[in-house]
């Protein structure tokens, strides 16, 4: 049985395995008996290169936002690249009052999101290292005993992939994946830095009450995190709830007294409340020499507003 043809084919098979970055042996999925499938997840068979818009419409639909792939195309598709970029995929849900959150690069994190009832949008690379073929799909279920995943992918409503094949394509895409969150929802196994960054990126486009809900969830989860307090405070400020804003900024400064952004915003809040002297005192407490130019400009701007303000009666109870 030493056909040269057979030998050649073995060599080729070996090459293919190496090129595809064959995974280590042993179980890939955490052993267990769990079988989960989010069968209600919508399905949008995609046209041509539209897997990005279709995948986004799928996860947004699962989060109760009714959008069509055609609408999402306007928000993420790049005709010149015949595809959609990850940065825009994460950003696009903001226009629908949803937050994109990048999951951790572990299969266990994907299954945790599914356990929590949230489908996971993933980037796959089915190409070769020197010829990448990028593709977005949505994981809607998994089967631990069989080590399989269920995806909405392209024109296939229930694509079944072995965990090994899934991981191969996911590894080659640097294990990128995301979920969309309704303001106030935390992802499963929430990572503090990832979540706060997602919430901070959500803030400018969000309605004050949505930003408030997003940061409020963070305050509950991580009560000792100053950034979460600042975010919730700023949402209250934008909703003109100055008393709540001041309380959150003060709480942030309790945690981290050097947080210049929190102190600047507290000064602005006090100014809005008519507490001009108190606002100036807060601003004077900022060590200007430690600030970068952007923050220095913000502080200078706040000072200008304080200097131009008329002295008003600071309402009783405005100060702690």
């Amino acid at each position: 049985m030493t056909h040269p043809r057979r030998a050649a084919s073995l060599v080729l098979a070996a090459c293919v395995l190496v090129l595809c970055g064959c995974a280590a042996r042993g179980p890939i999925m955490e052993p267990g008996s769990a079988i989960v499938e989010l069968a209600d997840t919508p399905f949008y068979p995609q046209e041509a290169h539209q897997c990005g818009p279709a995948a986004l419409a799928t996860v947004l639909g699962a989060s109760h936002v009714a959008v069509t792939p055609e609408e999402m195309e306007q928000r993420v598709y790049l005709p010149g690249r015949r595809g959609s970029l990850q940065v825009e995929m994460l950003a696009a849900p903001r226009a629908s009052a949803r937050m994109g959150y990048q999951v951790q690069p572990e299969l266990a994190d994907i299954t945790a999101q599914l356990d929590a009832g949230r489908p996971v949008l993933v980037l796959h690379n089915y190409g070769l290292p020197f010829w990448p073929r990028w593709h977005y799909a949505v994981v809607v279920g998994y089967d631990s005993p069989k080590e399989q995943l269920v995806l909405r992918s392209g024109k296939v409503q229930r694509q079944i992939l072995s965990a090994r094949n899934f991981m191969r394509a996911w590894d080659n895409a640097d294990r990128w994946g995301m979920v969309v969150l309704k303001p106030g929802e935390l992802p499963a196994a929430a990572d503090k830095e990832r979540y706060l960054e997602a919430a901070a990126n959500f803030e400018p486009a969000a309605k004050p009450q949505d930003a408030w809900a997003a940061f409020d969830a963070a305050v509950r989860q991580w009560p000792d995190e100053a950034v979460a307090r600042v975010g919730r405070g700023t949402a209250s400020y934008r909703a003109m709830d100055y008393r709540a804003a001041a309380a959150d900024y003060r709480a942030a400064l309790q945690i981290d007294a050097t947080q210049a952004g929190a102190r600047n915003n507290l000064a602005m809040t006090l100014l809005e409340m008519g507490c001009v002297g108190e606002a100036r005192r807060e601003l004077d407490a900022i060590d200007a020499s430690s600030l970068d130019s952007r923050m220095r400009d913000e502080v200078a701007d706040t000072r200008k507003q304080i200097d131009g303000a008329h002295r008003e009666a600071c309402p009783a109870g405005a100060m702690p």
Partner: protein
Amino acid sequence: MIKPSKWRAAAVAVLAVAITNVGFLNAAQAGIVATNAIVRTDRDANMATIRDQLDRSEVKAQMEKMGVDAASVDQRIAALSDSELHSLAKQMQDAPAGGDAIAVIGVVFLVLLILELVGIIDIFKKA
């Protein structure tokens, strides 16, 4: 002291052009520091403001060049944070662009064809 003032003038000019061009508006009020600026861990935050404006116009230009219709460009840019704009500006040409399902099928076919040709599998031949 010619140099610093020159830099300053250049920066002001760039900013003025960029701001009038794009006319973006952040939701946070003047004077309030956005949470983003606190989360952000920029090494060169001193150059950040100017850089952000440049990134913004760069991304806008590239999007238009890549065929996004003008009406959508501003909306799409408005959804992006400064650091997201920065990473887009740097790698819009070569960042992974998911969308190639048809080519995916092509690759699978190609691999199957090679395997078939060298005799590992036998799916294209008649029984």
